[in-house]
């Protein structure tokens, strides 16, 4: 799918150290530091042969509803037209380049640029030019000017289980193929046939390169080591099984853990319920109000955690009953915006909705099991200063980027780099 016939990468200067071509286990730190790499990513990754999440279908339910976003740094509008379809086009006036829409979201009958009032329909077609015929026969646009010759760039859009994706590429494969069956299935598992409802939106400004965050999302190795909430409060159960799915491209992944019903039954049979906690030494801590973790098995499959990523910058999260989508937006070499949209479903029972709200505490910038992810990328970004000629080591769980039954692996991190290198031609 990525174009391997790309010309040599347009880096301003040769890299500080060559990136070994024959292994996925090394990542040179210069990829997190160089402005020329960041610029190239915008064209080859985000505006390249990729699908990028824009918003939820449920956020623009009615004709004229729109949401502004960016794709590869380019301002984009996603709009619902009267035909019920969603259109995406660059939020840039074809006259002299001003933003067409200034709000982040809203409802419009048409879009009118504030600068000289050129107007557009809901599909982004130029429909009106102020004073086109001049005033009192003076001025105006020349006879030969045709509005149809001047159109904002349109993007391809695709809707998957209520998620709106867009691509600036004409050659990207259809979204179903891009995601692959296994990823699609796990998106459907959470969102399929449901009516999602936004229950909160937050933006976390990360002090690091965007790739350090998407690595972290795919890094199942760190979870129990960096995030100590569950072990501190003795909430880790032995009777958990899990695994990792990495798709063929490497760029998409799912990491999951589930209650192992067999193991649980054995424990129960042995009447050792009390012993199923990993740590049970005295002097440890207990939650005063454990209701935060009284989750419900709403999908009926015992999966308590499913983190799913789509290359390059999309994440779908289920941590117990806490559901969210995350959009990763680069803001230069050492800044990233992480947009969280917390979800429920229209048919949530009051109890389930309350549980989702309580479990807000687990995720996001103040999340018990995720606040560390907000700062750890910055620790790397600061740590690798002056080390552009050095490399990260990704050998946990071997050297491949394949699906596995263990989470003690960096397979999906290697997968990300596999896809990244293919897109970047690096």
């Amino acid at each position, binding site marked *: 799918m990525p174009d391997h016939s790309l010309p040599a990468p347009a880096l301003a200067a040769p890299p500080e150290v060559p990136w070994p071509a024959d292994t996925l286990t090394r990542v040179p730190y210069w990829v997190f530091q160089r402005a020329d790499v960041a610029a190239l990513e915008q064209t080859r990754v985000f505006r390249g042969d990729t699908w990028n999440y824009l918003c939820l279908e449920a956020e623009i339910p009615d004709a004229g509803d729109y949401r502004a976003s960016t794709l590869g740094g380019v301002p984009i509008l996603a709009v619902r037209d009267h035909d019920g379809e969603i259109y995406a086009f660059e939020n840039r006036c074809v006259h002299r380049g001003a933003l067409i829409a200034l709000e982040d979201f809203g409802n419009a009958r048409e879009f009118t640029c504030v600068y000289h009032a050129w107007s557009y329909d809901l599909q982004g077609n130029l429909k009106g030019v102020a004073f086109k015929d001049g005033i009192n026969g003076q001025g105006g646009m020349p006879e030969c000017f045709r509005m149809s010759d001047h159109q904002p760039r349109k993007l391809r859009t695709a809707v998957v289980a209520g998620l709106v994706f867009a691509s600036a590429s004409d050659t990207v494969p259809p979204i179903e193929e891009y995601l692959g069956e296994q990823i699609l299935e796990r998106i459907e598992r959470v969102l399929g046939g449901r009516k999602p409802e936004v229950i909160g939106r937050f933006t976390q*400004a*990360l002090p690091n390169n965007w790739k350090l965050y998407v690595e972290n999302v795919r890094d199942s190795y760190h979870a129990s080591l960096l995030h*100590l*909430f569950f072990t501190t409060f003795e909430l880790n159960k032995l009777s958990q099984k899990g695994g990792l799915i990495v798709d063929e491209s490497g760029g998409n992944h799912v990491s999951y853990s589930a209650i192992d019903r067999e193991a649980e039954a054995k424990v129960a049979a042995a009447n050792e319920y009390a012993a199923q906690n990993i740590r049970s030494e005295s002097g440890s801590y207990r*939650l005063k109000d454990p209701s935060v973790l009284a989750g419900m098995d709403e999908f009926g499959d015992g999966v308590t955690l499913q983190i799913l990523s789509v290359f390059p910058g999309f994440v779908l999260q289920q941590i117990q009953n806490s559901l969210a989508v995350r959009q990763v937006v680069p803001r230069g070499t050492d800044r990233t915006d992480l947009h969280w949209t*917390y979800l429920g479903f229209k048919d949530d029972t009051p109890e389930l909705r309350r549980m989702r709200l309580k479990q*807000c*505490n687990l995720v996001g910038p*103040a999340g018990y099991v995720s606040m*560390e992810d907000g700062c750890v990328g910055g620790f790397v970004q600061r740590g690798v200063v002056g080390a552009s000629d050095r490399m990260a080591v990704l050998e946990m769980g071997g050297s491949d980027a394949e699906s596995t039954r263990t989470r003690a692996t960096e397979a999906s991190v290697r997968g990300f780099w596999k896809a990244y290198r293919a897109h970047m031609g690096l």
Partner: protein
Amino acid sequence: MIGLPDIMAAQARYARCIDDGRLEDWPGFFLPDCVYRITTAENHRLGFAAGLIWADSLGMLQDRVAALREANIYERHAYRHVLGLPLLEEAGADGTRSETPFLVARIMRDGATDLFATGRYLDLWRADGDGPPKLAERIVVCDSSRVDTLLALPL
């Protein structure tokens, strides 16, 4: 009857408690069945119920402190709260409501000082015996929709 001086005094003590790093004392400003939530102006305006922190019991606030002390990992930092004047609303059957603007500077371990958050406290106060009034509800509405890096210490 809860008056303006009572609320101002409670606010001042609340801010000093957090800024001095006495997190263990922080839940003591709340009643047992309290609500504490941190959200943003946009979420508040749109009626979105989620929060960066969402608690509906004193136990959840105590757990928050325990997690910050024992489990969560973040760089050492402190806040400096600067509070504006509380605006008191008519006392109702469920207590006295007030709105108080705040600025919070964040001082990192290397001395870097940023304006971390601005916003307002939407509070519901109730008398607690002869002692100072306590919070039955505090909705922290941050003006900006962005949070820098992470939000560890409470606002």
